[in-house]
C-alpha cells in the first residue's frame, strides 16, 4: 500500500502528482475549492494542471467554505469521491458544523454504516508572516470527533500516497498539510538519518533515527510540519552524539500510542512537539496515554512543547517568539538529558 518514495520530489509535487493520477484512475473523484483552476492552480498550487486535465471534475467554488464542504458531503453520499481544498486551514472553523454535525454524523447516525468518502485537505501552520487568521494549526478542534479521521503527513511520509489512502478509506478524512512543507524535498534515509515506517497502516507512523548503533536517548513524538524542524536538528545532534528516535505519526485521530511503547520504554525519556497552541492539544492525549501505558517506567516526566497560547503575530520576531522553534526543541532535549 505504501510504495517507495520517488526520488527527490517535494511535498507539494507529491500531492499534485497523486491528485492527477487518482483522477485519471477513478472517475468518481472530484476536486473542489476556491481558486483551484488553471492557470492559477490554487493558492498553494497543489491543484496545478488538474482542471486542464479534468475540466469537468474540477469545480471552482464560491467563497462559501461551509457551503462547499456540505456540498462535498452530499456528493459523497451519492457515490462520488470529492476532495475539498480549504484554502487556509483557519477557515475550517467556518465549516465546523458541516464537518462535525453533518459529514461525520452521517457515517453512523442512521443506525447503519454509510459510505461517506470525502477528504477535506487544507494547509495549516505559521512561519510565513500571514498573521493571526492565516497561520493557525486549528486541527486540534477536530481531534476526537467520532467518525472523523484526521491525518497529517510529515515530509518523512509520502503525502501523495497518504492522500490516496485517505480517498480509499470511504469515510471522512481531514487531511492537514503544513504550508511550510510544500516546497520541501521529501526526506529519505541518508547521511545521519535513517527513516523507516514504524507501522504499516494506511497512515503510518514514520520513524526517523539519527544513530545506527546504540539506543535512543530521547524519543520525540511529533507530526506534520514539525519534521521540518526535527530533521536538521537530528542531523546536528548526531554530531553531538545525542541519539534521537523521532516518531512521526500521520494518523492524529483516532490515535493509539501502542506502536510507541517499545521505544518509550527503551529510552525512558519522551518529548512531544507540535505547532498548535499549548493546552488541550494533541500532546495532551498522547502524554496521557503514554503515561498510563508506561506507568512509572519512564526516567523523567514527559516533556511537552507547543506554541504559546496566544494569537500569532505577523512580524518575524513576534512569530518566532510565539511559535515553537528548533531552539525550543533543542533546549528541551538537553533539559530532558540533564
Amino acid at each position, binding site marked *: 500500500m505504501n510504495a517507495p518514495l520517488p526520488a527527490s520530489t517535494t511535498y507539494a509535487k507529491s500531492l499534485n502528482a497523486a491528485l492527477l493520477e487518482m483522477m485519471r484512475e477513478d472517475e468518481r473523484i472530484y476536486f473542489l475549492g476556491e481558486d483551484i483552476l488553471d492557470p492559477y492552480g490554487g493558492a498553494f498550487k497543489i491543484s496545478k494542471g488538474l482542471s486542464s486535465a479534468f475540466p469537468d471534475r474540477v469545480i471552482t467554488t464560491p467563497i462559501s467554505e*461551509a*457551503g462547499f464542504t*456540505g456540498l462535498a458531503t452530499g456528493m459523497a*453520499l451519492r457515490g462520488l469521491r470529492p476532495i475539498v481544498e480549504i484554502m487556509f486551514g483557519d477557515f475550517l472553523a467556518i465549516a465546523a*458544523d458541516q464537518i462535525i*454535525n*453533518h459529514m461525520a454524523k*452521517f457515517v453512523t447516525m*442512521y443506525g447503519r454504516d*454509510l459510505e461517506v468518502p470525502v477528504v477535506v485537505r487544507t494547509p495549516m501552520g505559521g512561519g510565513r508572516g500571514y498573521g493571526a487568521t492565516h497561520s493557525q494549526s486549528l486541527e486540534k478542534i477536530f481531534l476526537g470527533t467520532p467518525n472523523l479521521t484526521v491525518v497529517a503527513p510529515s515530509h518523512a511520509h509520502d503525502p501523495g500516497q497518504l492522500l490516496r489512502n485517505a480517498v480509499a478509506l470511504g469515510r471522512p478524512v481531514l487531511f492537514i498539510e503544513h504550508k511550510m512543507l510544500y516546497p520541501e524535498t521529501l526526506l529519505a534515509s541518508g547521511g545521519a538519518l535513517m527513516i523507516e515506517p514504524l507501522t504499516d497502516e494506511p497512515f503510518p507512523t514514520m520513524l526517523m533515527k539519527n544513530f545506527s548503533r546504540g539506543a535512543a536517548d530521547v524519543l520525540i513524538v511529533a507530526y506534520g510540519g514539525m519534521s521540518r524542524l526535527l530533521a536538521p536538528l537530528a542531523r546536528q545532534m548526531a554530531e553531538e552524539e545525542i541519539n534521537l528516535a523521532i516518531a512521526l505519526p500521520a494518523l492524529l485521530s483516532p490515535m493509539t500510542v501502542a506502536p510507541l511503547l517499545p521505544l518509550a520504554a527503551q529510552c525512558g525519556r519522551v518529548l512531544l512537539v507540535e505547532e498548535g497552541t499549548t493546552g488541550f492539544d494533541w500532546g495532551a492525549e498522547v502524554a496521557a496515554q503514554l503515561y498510563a501505558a508506561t506507568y512509572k517506567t519512564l526516567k523523567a516526566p514527559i516533556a511537552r512543547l507547543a506554541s504559546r497560547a496566544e494569537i500569532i503575530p505577523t512580524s518575524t520576531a513576534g512569530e518566532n517568539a510565539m511559535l515553537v522553534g528548533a531552539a525550543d526543541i533543542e533546549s528541551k532535549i538537553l533539559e530532558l538529558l540533564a
Partner: protein
Amino acid sequence: MDAKRNDLLTGFYEKMVLINTVESSLLNLFAEGLLRGTVHTCLGQEAIPTGVCAALEPGRDIVCSNHRGHGHFLAFGGEARPLIAEIMGDASGVCRGIGGSQHIQLGNFYSNGILGGMSPVATGMALAEKRKGSGGVVVQFLGDGALAEGVVSEAFNMAALWSLPILFAVESNGFAQSTPTALEHAGKLSARGAPYGIPITELDGNDVLAVHAAAQEAVGAARGAGGPQILFMNTYRLGPHSKGDDPRDPAEIARHAEQAPIPRARAGLDPEWCDTTDHRIAAEVAAIIQGIRSARIAAQ
C-alpha cells in the same frame, strides 16, 4: 371535479390522514411517557409533504428533510411502523432507534436536526445526480425560520450557479418555534432566492392539489435541466412546536384549523368515504402502536 382529479384527491386524503394520525399518536405517546426526546409534528401542514412527494419518483429522486420530517418520510413512501418504532427509540425502527425523530435515513430519504445544514448537502446530492446522469431530482424541505441560516443562501447560490436539479420546498408556517416570522426576517421572505435567479412560486400550501401541481411543474423543470426551483408554500402549524407548551392564541389556531389541508380536501370528497377512511387508518395506526408495545413488553 373530473375523475383523475378525484383519484388524486382520494389518494392525497388517505396520505394526509395517515400523516395526521401518526403525528397525533406520537403526541399521545409522548404524553404517556412512551416516547422521549423531542417530536416535531406537522399537524395542519400535511398537504405539503403529500403534494410534493407525490411529484417524485422514490427510486431516483431524493428527499432531504429537517426536524419536522415524519410527514416527508411517510409521503415519500416510508412505512408507518418502522417510523413510529424509530421515534419510540425501538431497535425495530428504521434507524434501529439510534437516529430518532430528527435523524432518519432510508433509501433516498435523509434528515438531520441542524436547521439549514442540509441545504448544501442536498445541493451536493443534486450535483452528483446531475453528473451521474441519473435524472434524479433532490427536494430539500425547509422551514421559514431556517431560511435565516447563511448556509441556505450559499446553497441557493451554488445550486443556481451550476444549474442543479434541486427543489427547495419552503414550508412557511409563519413561526419558528415560538417566534413569528416578522420578528426574525426582514423584507420579503419569499423572495430570498430571487437574486440568484431561481424561479420562485408562492402558493397556498394547504391546498394539496395546488401543491402537487406546483411540485410537478417544479420537479419537471428541475429534471429538465431548468436548474433549481423554489416553492414557497404558506401554511400553518396546528400543533405545538414540539410537544407541550404553545404560546399562540387558541382562537388564532382554531381559525386556521378550518383552513387546514384535511378539512379542505374533505370538502371535495364523499364524507362517508372520508369517515370510513379516517376510521380505517386510525385502526391501522393503533394496531401498529399496539404491536410495538406488545413486542416491547414481550422483550422485557
